[in-house]
């Protein structure tokens, strides 16, 4: 097993440092000087020649399940996601508590690469664990649980005596212009986000948790997602979305706890105490018209995002992580970054920041048109939905050029519970 807080302590001398981290570090502290090489190239080169023994140190690939916060939020993004929303069918509060206890136990085991329940010794019983992850390591599996607004109240009914605990923030999103939401991709009383570097491991997790829930909760909708794997991008460059653009460049630094407390983790006084150290999750299933995009000129594509496709830099800048200059104009007096460019509209005055942790999806074809049903399973974490996500999405829905190429088909919001210590269970602060 790797040491529990490995993620926090990774240094520049370790192969696990991404190029981006090095660039960031160089930007603030001058790592080049620190390691006696000149500049960033030096730092990268050094990382590249480190002995393989050091590169391999995370072969157990275990992300600690227990802690102050749930894993899967500040965790470095894994290769795959399997996201599931559930409707609770149980009517009794104790049953619900029981479910969370069982889920906690199973999740803790699976995130360590262990199987669920007892070993299958009795040939006359179906095995506890479904088996497809046998012999596989955890592949950085994280399992993140959330509760939706309808767990608290549904049809004006206080379902589990939780009504008074419902945060003001936790309610269905307003309808945004151009939304084309479909019932089959919307809402949920509970959610499970399983992320792993192996899709089979992620699916196994949700499958077993859904099995444990049988009789208490049923699947409402589910979606698998992917991004380029770490194997395919050893330098861990920013992944590209299905429109071919680097996606995830601008995000709060998950290793900076001050920033995370400011933008992601719910703080005392924000709302009900049970959610302190938790966060709000917004998920939108956004279909991308990739055929239409593919016949769009490069110039239009870049103007749509406000970034260069190749480098990922903001228009008018050179490198991916250079800061934007929204006032910069070209020789014709036009803004480099058009007024309707996605990054300009999303950025706004820069005050709202969200942690985006999205994945691409590709679900066969749209039966109606024969085109791909592919897009983005957009997921963001934020301390406040009303102050962060909503204002951004409101602007985007009104003037983002990207709206020509996408349509929002699904939507849900959840409060991701705080983390627990060993011996506790996810949801204990809510039910106590």
């Amino acid at each position: 097993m790797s040491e529990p807080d490995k993620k926090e302590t990774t240094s520049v001398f370790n192969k696990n440092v991404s190029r981006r981290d090095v660039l960031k570090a160089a930007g603030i502290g001058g790592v080049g000087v620190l390691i006696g090489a000149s500049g960033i190239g030096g730092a990268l080169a050094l990382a590249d020649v480190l002995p393989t023994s050091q590169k391999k140190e995370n072969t157990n690939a275990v992300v600690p399940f227990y802690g102050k916060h749930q894993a899967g939020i500040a965790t470095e993004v894994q290769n795959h996601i399997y996201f599931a929303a559930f409707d609770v069918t149980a009517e009794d509060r104790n049953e619900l508590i029981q479910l969370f206890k069982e889920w906690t136990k199973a999740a803790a085991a699976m995130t360590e690469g262990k199987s669920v329940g007892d070993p299958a010794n009795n040939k006359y019983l179906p095995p506890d664990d479904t088996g497809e992850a046998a012999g596989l390591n955890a592949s950085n599996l994280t399992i993140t649980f959330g509760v939706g607004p309808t767990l608290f109240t549904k049809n004006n009914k206080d379902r589990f005596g939780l009504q008074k605990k419902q945060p003001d923030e936790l309610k269905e999103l307003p309808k945004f212009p151009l939304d084309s939401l479909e019932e089959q991709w919307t809402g949920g009383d509970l959610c499970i986000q399983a992320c792993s570097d192996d899709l089979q491991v992620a699916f196994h997790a949700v499958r077993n948790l859904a099995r444990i829930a049988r009789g208490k909760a049923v699947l409402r909708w589910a979606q698998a997602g992917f991004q380029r794997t770490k194997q395919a991008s050893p330098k861990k460059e920013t992944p590209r979305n299905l429109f071919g653009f680097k996606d995830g460049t601008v995000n709060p630094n998950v290793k900076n706890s001050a920033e995370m407390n400011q933008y992601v983790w719910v703080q005392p006084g924000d709302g009900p105490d049970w959610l302190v150290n938790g966060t709000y999750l917004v998920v939108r299933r956004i279909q991308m018209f990739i055929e239409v995009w593919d016949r769009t000129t490069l110039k239009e594509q870049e103007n749509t995002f406000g970034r260069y496709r190749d480098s990922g830099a903001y228009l008018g800048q050179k490198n991916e992580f250079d800061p934007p200059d929204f006032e910069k104009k070209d020789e014709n007096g036009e803004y480099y970054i058009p007024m309707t460019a996605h990054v300009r509209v999303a950025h706004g005055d820069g005050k709202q920041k969200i942690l985006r942790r999205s994945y691409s999806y590709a679900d066969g074809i749209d039966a109606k048109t024969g085109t791909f049903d592919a897009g983005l399973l957009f997921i963001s974490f934020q301390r406040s939905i009303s102050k962060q996500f909503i204002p951004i999405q409101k602007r985007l829905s009104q003037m983002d050029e990207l709206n020509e190429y996408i349509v929002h088909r699904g939507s849900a919001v959840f409060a991701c519970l705080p983390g627990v210590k060993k011996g506790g269970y996810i949801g204990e602060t809510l039910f106590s």
Partner: protein
Amino acid sequence: MKRYKLPVILFLSSSLLFSCSQSNESSTTEPAKKETAKESSQVDLNQISTDYRTFAIAEIDEFVKKTEEFANAVIAGDVEKAKELYAPARMHYERSEPIAEAFAELDPKIDAREGDVPDAEWGGYHRIEKGLWVENTTKGYEKYAEQLIKDVKLLRAKVETVDVTPDLLITGAVDLLNEVSTSKVTGEEDRYSHTDLYDFVANVEGAEKIYELMSPALKEKDEALAKEIEQRFQAVYALLDKYKKGDGYISYTELTKDQVKELSQSINELAEPLSKLGVVLEG
């Protein structure tokens, strides 16, 4: 309608960063982006732009006329006549879309679908469409008809100011087909009257007009591409011909799933080579 062109009317209430006039400017000047690539052909692209402008303005003139007839039928309370005039009138707008929709503040007023704008602001063709087909009435819709006449007249006046560039034409041709792919072919455009096929045809014709104007330049550069595009246009028209009925087209609801898919795919097959029109521009 083009989806992103909503900002101006909606934007009044939002952020400080962009003022209305700015965002207005950004969309109306889109056609005027001057960094237009250099011409590399003997064919005079400026002449093509002028010709296109003439075409588009003629369409919009006709659009104003037909819209007035339509709106007057609504005001007169003649449901049947209004229903008859609805789809053919819209075709002029759809044909000249690259120009007609360049006005961010007018397009949503004329052509927003339900849900595209807040309900209180929703007017224009599709609002009246809902009255005619869902409620089978014109009662209460007179005010929308009156406003629509004003808006299309304003559009006609503004069109004079549009600067048509080869750049605009090239993206415009494909945009017209993208409109078909993302809303007409799914039946989401005319969701109450189901006259989507009229809009569909008009968008294709609009794209074809641009192609026609560009084709001498294209043939100089890439004869094979020109030929491919022409064949694909024919294929689309051949499909559409099957759904002709009288002077118009059958209802979208009469199409089978397979027919919708076939239409959708034929548009994609046309749009792909058409998106290479840009070869006539260098760079």
